């Protein structure tokens, strides 16, 4: 399988495009990240399955993408495909099966809709299937982060030792106050705000200054936001299949140079910070 910028090279060739030339640009972009030698890389943000918006990624294609960029593992959770029960049960199971087959390269998170009945039962089921974290999407599932039902599932995740990855990108609502309320209502929870919190970046950066368990992933983040955030709060991510790995690595490489991250800080962003959170630390 030839992958080019995260897409099928054969499809591009069929349009009369030059996959080799596009791959050369991709390779150069990834090289410009200037990663620390031999650094472990773990992707904190990947959707598996088919989303209601048409985006799709399967485990085989993901593993090919990881191999292409020397990425060891990826946190994966379902696309926006809540299924008949509205609680992503089938999609969570598919991710769990992919993780079981991938021998540690897929780290499964489950996804639920906190405001629909059965969210905690869905989390328990996913836990039995191997889930190691929770993904919440306030825009797709139309809930407010500070909603009492959200607090309950976040507390339940914390009780399991799971981090909670929350969409914090595109969306009209201000996020800092609601996320602050959620963090205060579930003080044991580690919250990973996706996309560098670009949906409300400046206010969320201030909030994180007073909430040590708030982290950010770098997927499809804005470079100025990553430069401004402390590197020990950042976890590398791609948002596959919305983003891809070459530009995701290029982004953190640019942030590292502009912010002056040390070698150890850069390695932390690429994998160490996420490993620490998955192991129950902050």
């Amino acid at each position, binding site marked *: 399988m030839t992958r*080019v*910028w*995260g*897409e*099928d090279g054969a*499809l*591009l060739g*069929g*349009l*009369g*495009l030059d996959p080799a*030339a*596009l791959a050369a*640009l*991709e390779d150069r*972009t990834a090289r*410009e990240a200037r990663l620390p030698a031999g650094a472990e890389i773990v992707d904190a943000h990947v959707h598996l399955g088919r989303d209601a918006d*048409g985006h799709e990624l399967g485990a085989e294609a993901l593993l090919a993408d990881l191999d292409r960029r020397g990425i060891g593992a990826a946190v994966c959770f379902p696309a926006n495909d809540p299924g008949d029960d509205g609680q992503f049960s089938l999609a969570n199971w598919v991710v769990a099966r992919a993780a079981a087959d991938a021998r540690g390269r897929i780290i499964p998170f489950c996804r639920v809709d906190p405001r629909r009945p059965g969210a905690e039962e869905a989390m328990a089921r996913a836990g039995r299937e191997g889930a190691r974290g929770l993904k919440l999407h306030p825009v797709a599932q139309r809930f407010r982060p500070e909603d009492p039902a959200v607090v309950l599932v976040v507390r339940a995740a914390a009780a399991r030792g799971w981090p909670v990855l929350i969409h914090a990108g595109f969306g009209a609502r201000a996020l800092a106050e609601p996320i602050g309320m959620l963090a205060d209502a579930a003080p044991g929870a580690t919250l990973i705000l996706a996309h560098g919190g670009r949906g409300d970046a400046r206010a969320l950066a201030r909030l994180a200054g007073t909430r040590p368990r708030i982290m950010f992933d770098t997927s*499809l983040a*804005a*470079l*100025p936001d990553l*430069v401004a955030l402390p590197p020990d709060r950042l976890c590398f991510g791609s948002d596959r*299949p919305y*983003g*891809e790995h*070459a*530009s995701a690595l*290029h*982004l953190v490489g*640019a942030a590292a*140079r*502009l912010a002056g991250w040390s070698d150890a800080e850069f390695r932390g962003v690429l994998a160490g910070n996420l490993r620490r959170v998955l192991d129950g630390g902050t």
Partner: protein
Amino acid sequence: MSADPLDLARLHAALAQCEMALVRRDNVAAALLAQAARHAEGLPGGDLVAAAARLVRAVDVGGGESAERAARKVAQALCRSALQTTEAALIGAASGSRHG
């Protein structure tokens, strides 16, 4: 020699428009990328923008076929990489003027 911040700012504004047009599958992306490619000539990431402009000329950006979706996603990735390159140059220039 570092790029003129005004040229970088112009390109940055153009690329942000291109990226959103591609996300929204709007056919105006082809015209916006052609314009951005002119702005990008001689600047860091200019070849990424040129490749994205060529790509969207060759496909229907609003198309729903698998190949068209793949091409649109590659154009987005090229555009995003160019935007990041431009932002890095701008931030670097701003830091230099703050500290210089």
